[in-house]
């Protein structure tokens, strides 16, 4: 996946991720990983939730699909571990255009030539949370003793399959195990299971059944 350059201290890191297929988009792009809560812009985070089609309320019966900002603020402040991944805005945008490649590839190449100077300038500027775009996120809350639960792990669909999600999962588990917490759980839908499996998660070896409260509270 390329090499990692450590900037500052352990809460921030600059890395390169590589995509397997190579269109006009650059083969490897720099990403910035932060574990600091103050690097999170709530508006951007809410935007990411909707772009990833991820709801804070896991069960479809709960919530309306729109993230409540006040609750999001509380959830972030009360999460013990948060990991945010940023990339340069033009990398995120460029990749999204790849979906419409067949329709307007020639047009896009033209645009690319025109803005290549701007892109070059962007490429030279170091990536930071303030000039980068939030493209990946994950958080966990724990009891600081025995257990932890990972939630809302998501990566922008157009930047998936580049190892960003795995980076986030590994960072979260690393932070938790460094605090001596080894009972780490993640609730996931059926389609998310292969991803978590690849990150080192598995069904409970003790054979427990996951249950969620689904009864609506009678007034």
């Amino acid at each position, binding site marked *: 996946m390329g090499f990692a350059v450590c900037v*500052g201290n*352990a*809460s921030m890191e600059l890395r390169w991720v590589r995509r397997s297929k190579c269109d006009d988009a650059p083969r490897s792009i720099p990403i910035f990983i932060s574990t*600091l*809560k*103050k690097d*999170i*812009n*709530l*508006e951007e985070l809410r935007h990411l939730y909707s772009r990833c089609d991820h709801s804070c*309320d*896991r*069960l479809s019966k*709960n*919530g309306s699909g729109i993230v409540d*900002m006040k*609750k999001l*603020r*509380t*959830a*972030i*402040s*009360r*999460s013990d571990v948060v990991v945010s991944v940023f990339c340069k805005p033009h990398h995120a945008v460029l990749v999204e255009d790849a979906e419409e490649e067949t329709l307007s590839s020639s047009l896009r190449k033209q645009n690319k030539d025109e803005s290549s100077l701007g892109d070059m300038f962007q490429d030279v500027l170091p990536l930071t*949370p*303030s000039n980068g775009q939030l493209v990946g996120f994950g*958080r966990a*809350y*724990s*009891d*600081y*003793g*025995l257990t932890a*639960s990972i*939630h809302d792990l998501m990566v922008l669909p157009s930047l998936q399959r580049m190892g960003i999600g795995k980076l986030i999962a590994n960072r979260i588990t690393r932070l938790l195990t460094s*605090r*001596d917490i080894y009972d780490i*759980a*993640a*609730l*996931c*839908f*059926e389609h998310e*299971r292969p991803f*978590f499996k690849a*990150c080192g*998660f*598995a069904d*409970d*070896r003790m*054979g*427990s*059944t*996951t*249950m*969620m*409260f*689904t*009864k609506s*509270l009678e007034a």
Partner: protein
Amino acid sequence: MILIPTSSSSSCSSYSCCSLPQASFNSNSYPSNQSLFLSKSGYPIPHGSRKLKTLRLRANFWESIRSGFVKNNNTTQLVEPPSTMEEDDDTEPVLPVEFTLVERTLEDGLVEEIIFSSGGEIDVYDLQTLCDKVGWPRRPLTKLAAALKNSYMVATLHSVLKSSSSSEGNNEQQEKKKLIGMARATSDHAFNATIWDVLVDPEYQGQGLGKALVEKLVRALLQRDIGNISLFADSQVVDFYQNLGFEADPEGIKGMFWYPK
């Protein structure tokens, strides 16, 4: 008495140290149209020092132990709960609650009260004894104490045996308090909660006490608008939770656990 772990504070202080040099790095070097501390919509994200919070918790803890010696007969408010943070002005603190679930007279004239309590203090040694009784593997006491301190909600059941002759004064000799049940939940205080460690003394099982514990915990969580309440049930208790309104693998959601290679 409760063990206050020293290990958790050391890990907390190293966490807060990391955030300090960061502030100077970001704000000086790069002007941003997107402010770091305050988003455009004006939602500041509190990132108060963890070390301060631990110290504040300790002060409240000792206060609660001191004032906890005052005998209470079913008063609802005890002491300031340690879970309040001054940054979270808008979220309700978890208020301590205590009330009698069951009161009955035993054959030998003793009166037994089963008291439900939430937000009160738990003796870690008592809990260890209870875990042994139900046959759970032993866990380190410091970790247990830390887990209890940092859980969003801890509900307990105590059995208080009173001699019926003591109607006023001098209760110490005739009152015996025993921990007989516990349930706790961790949460992000907004969307998700996970219930762990539900246990009831085998001598008191089959009386609906476990049901009451979980029911009240769930009710309290729902009242705080926490919609995703999950737990991981052993095979023999799946029916127990189903009767309480829990569903196994709803919408295909399963819990996966991390296992180091």
